């Protein structure tokens, strides 16, 4: 594209004739469009009729389901907090808002610094608004709608339809004008704030076993935080765009990627969990250990990244790996005790050492590699110390997270860990070394042959039986491990498909340039394979997200269990399962649909399929 434009401008400069502007595909008027597409023949008209009837019937039935007389939507409204954050104590809720604020700020920073700005044509906006309005009007006139809601649906429908059609009429060439991302973001923020302050949704709360349910406006404890959240979302975005020209973009991007990988753990374990650090022990034990690992490990890695170190470097790395593995074996059989984080640190150090030859280079590259190690040690030790420190939260039923939060957290971590694991497995499966190939194939095919629910049951109930005394695994951790191992097999298959699409010439060019096998894999093959795999990987991520509801069955207090069991057994809302299920479906749908939309625009941006 850019090349073509250059050619054009060159032609012009050279005195060429300006090329004709490409004629627009005319935008058809809706009546014309319907004639051509829906009623083009008797058969087509008949099909359209049948289809509309079926669709109308379904909508009728669904509206009836939502407004069934026995439904008490207060069950959801009163329990919103339970649904989203389970038993998290109300007086500590500032921690939840803080975490959400951090995440929203990070979203805005990411959008600004990675130039993510999806835009929508005015035409599409108009059509969507009209469609929404029309649907709302139809719901308004359906007999199943109760009279109180009817008027709301009719008003909203009329407003949207008028706005949509009005926009399409008022703007000429609406398919060529775009609503920019900042505008959309601002509109979104303002709508949320306006909704919180202006819509009389009532004050619903479930406190100390009794329902507080009064008409009027939402609590200030809901309105004010949401206003602040939206201010962060919008404000950080505009601020970031303003300062971006003055900042080095690469380091900020690195920081953001680090935040998305490590940040949630900090929010969960250090902010939401609020551990009480024993500062005496931190000073005497934790910090010295961390410094020790950072310094000694850093020195070893600095030496290992020396170019042309040869065989000795590999020997040292393998020896380190041996020590690391031995520590875990020792823990398993109880030979000697050791701080958990020491074991983890040895393992990570060994992995860094094994990868060192790939990243060997001149001084600044080596310093950067050591820097990455020091950062990992600092963050990792802080986190592990935090996790191993008792929490101040006084919660009756652990775990301290539940509801939608736990579903989201499980999803996030399953994806985060199964991704690299799956990539490694895919590489192993396509490796030329038979042991790797056989091991990876057996693993992948074995996992893909058993249902997820079996894996979850196995990990939630069986694994702790096999663990030696003194080593225990919380149920949630066990579920997480099982789910990750399951998901990794599918990720591996998706990435393998991408690996196979990388052309032979890419391998040959890398070899001819003298890249080592691992350099070839990391810098040339994997990036291209991942890019091709994006659509499949996102599809799988969406499936993983929805299937987090299966942890319900192994007893976790996830979104679904809270809706279907916890709420439906409250004395006030006994048997209110339907509203809960409808609500859960709606939330899952919004998230899954957003993900699939986001992936589609990502595909377009990366040019997948149009190479």
């Amino acid at each position, binding site marked *: 594209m850019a090349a073509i434009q250059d050619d054009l401008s060159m032609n012009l400069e050279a005195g060429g004739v300006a090329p004709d502007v490409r004629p627009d595909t005319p935008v058809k008027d809706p009546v014309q469009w319907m004639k051509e597409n829906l009623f083009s023949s008797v058969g087509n008209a008949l099909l359209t009729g049948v289809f509309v009837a079926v669709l109308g019937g379904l909508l009728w039935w669904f509206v009836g389901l939502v407004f069934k007389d026995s439904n008490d939507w207060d069950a959801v409204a009163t329990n919103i907090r339970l649904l989203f954050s389970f038993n998290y104590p109300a007086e500590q809720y500032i921690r939840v808002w803080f975490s959400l604020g951090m995440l929203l700020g990070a979203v805005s920073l990411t959008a600004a610094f990675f130039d993510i700005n999806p835009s929508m044509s005015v035409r599409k906006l108009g059509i969507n608004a009209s469609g929404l309005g029309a649907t709302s009007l139809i719901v308004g006139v359906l007999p199943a709608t109760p009279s109180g809601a009817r008027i709301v649906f009719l008003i909203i429908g009329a407003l949207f339809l008028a706005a949509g059609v009005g926009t399409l009429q008022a703007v000429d060439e609406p398919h060529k004008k775009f609503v920019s991302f900042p505008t959309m973001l601002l509109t979104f923020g303002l709508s949320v704030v306006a909704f919180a302050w202006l819509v009389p949704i009532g004050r619903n709360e479930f406190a100390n076993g009794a329902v507080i349910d009064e008409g009027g406006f939402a609590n200030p404890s809901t309105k004010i935080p949401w206003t602040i959240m939206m201010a962060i979302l919008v404000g950080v975005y505009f601020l970031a765009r303003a300062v971006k020209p003055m900042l080095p973009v690469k380091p900020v991007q690195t920081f953001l990627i680090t935040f998305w990988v490590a940040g949630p753990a900090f929010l969960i374990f250090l902010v939401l969990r609020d551990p009480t650090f024993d500062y005496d022990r931190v000073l005497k034990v934790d910090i010295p250990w961390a410094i020790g690992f950072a310094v000694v490990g850093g020195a070893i890695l600095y030496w290992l990244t020396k170019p042309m170190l040869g065989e000795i470097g590999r020997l040292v790395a393998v020896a380190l790996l041996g020590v690391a593995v031995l520590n875990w074996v020792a823990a398993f059989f109880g030979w000697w005790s050791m701080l958990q984080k020491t074991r983890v640190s040895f393992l990570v150090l060994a992995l860094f050492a094994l990868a060192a030859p790939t990243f060997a280079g*001149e001084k600044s590259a080596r310093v950067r590699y050591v820097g990455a190690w020091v950062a990992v040690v600092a963050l990792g030790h802080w986190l592990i110390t935090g996790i191993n420190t008792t929490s101040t939260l006084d919660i009756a039923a652990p775990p301290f997270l539940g509801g939608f939060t736990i579903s989201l957290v499980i999803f996030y971590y399953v994806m985060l860990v199964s991704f690299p694991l799956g990539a490694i497995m895919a590489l192993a499966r396509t490796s030329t070394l038979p042991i790797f190939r056989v091991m990876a194939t057996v693993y992948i095919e074995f996992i893909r042959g058993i249902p997820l629910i079996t894996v979850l049951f196995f990990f939630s109930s069986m694994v702790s039986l096999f663990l030696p005394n003194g080593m225990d695994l919380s149920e949630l951790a066990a579920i997480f491990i099982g789910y990750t191992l399951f998901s990794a097999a599918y990720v591996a298959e998706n990435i393998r498909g991408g690996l196979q699409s990388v052309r032979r010439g*890419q391998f040959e060019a890398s070899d001819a*340039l003298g*890249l080592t096998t691992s350099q070839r894999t990391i810098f040339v093959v994997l990036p291209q394979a991942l890019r091709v795999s994006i659509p499949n990987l996102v599809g799988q991520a969406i499936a993983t997200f929805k299937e987090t509801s299966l942890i319900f069955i192994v007893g976790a207090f996830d979104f679904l269990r809270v809706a279907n069991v916890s709420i439906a057994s409250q004395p006030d809302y006994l048997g209110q399962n339907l509203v809960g299920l409808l609500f859960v479906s709606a939330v899952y749908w919004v998230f899954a649909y957003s993900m699939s939309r986001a992936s589609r625009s990502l595909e377009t941006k990366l040019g997948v399929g149009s190479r």
Partner: protein
Amino acid sequence: MTASFTDPNAALSPELAARDDMINCRGVKKWFGDFQALKGVDLTVKDREVMVVLGPSGSGKSTLIRCINRLEVHQEGDITVDGIELTNDLRNIDKIRSEVGMVFQQFNLFPHLTVLDNITLAPIWVRKKARVEAEATARALLERVGIPEQADKFPGQLSGGQQQRVAIARSLAMEPKIMLFDEPTSALDPEMISEVLDVMKGLADSGMTMVVVTHEMGFAREVADRLVFMEEGNVVEINEPGAFFTNPNSDRTKLFLSQIL
């Protein structure tokens, strides 16, 4: 004339004869399954020599030069590059690959990296150069191949001729002693061929040792020190350009030339 016309040292000018050997192939044989693609090739390329390899399709030209940097593994015979023998020893292979650059018919640029990153990738990670230094070299090379303004584009945004020039720059960034070209202009539109050939001529003038598989007879006549004609896995004739085109030794060569000229 004592030496036969397939003697690896045939048709050497006294000046070339006095130079060191850069590439030495002795009795190189290569099979793909049961099919023998090289049937005992003897070839010597001198320091700073430009050797052009000609021959009909399937005669083993690509296979031969791909054996020189170990993209293909030969089964019999010896290949020595700048005094390093090509064996299964990985260290020798690495050493040879870092001395030998290769340019492919299909360019094989890395589509996910910008032009600049394509060129700096290997210097940074294989030669262990500092990024700043590698980028400076890369920009100088882009200047040399005539496209300094394309540094930040992606390969997919360039024309074929521009892509092939980037590929040449990418190889040169490794500061090779030898450059192998496998039909570098065959995938190009006619109007782009000359821009690539010009770069190659400049390279030859600067004293690079080059082995070029090509069908561009004009280039062969003008630039080559010697020409090699291959057929069915054998070297049929080695000659200097004047004699090769006007008075070839082998009847096979005559037939080939009559078909293409």
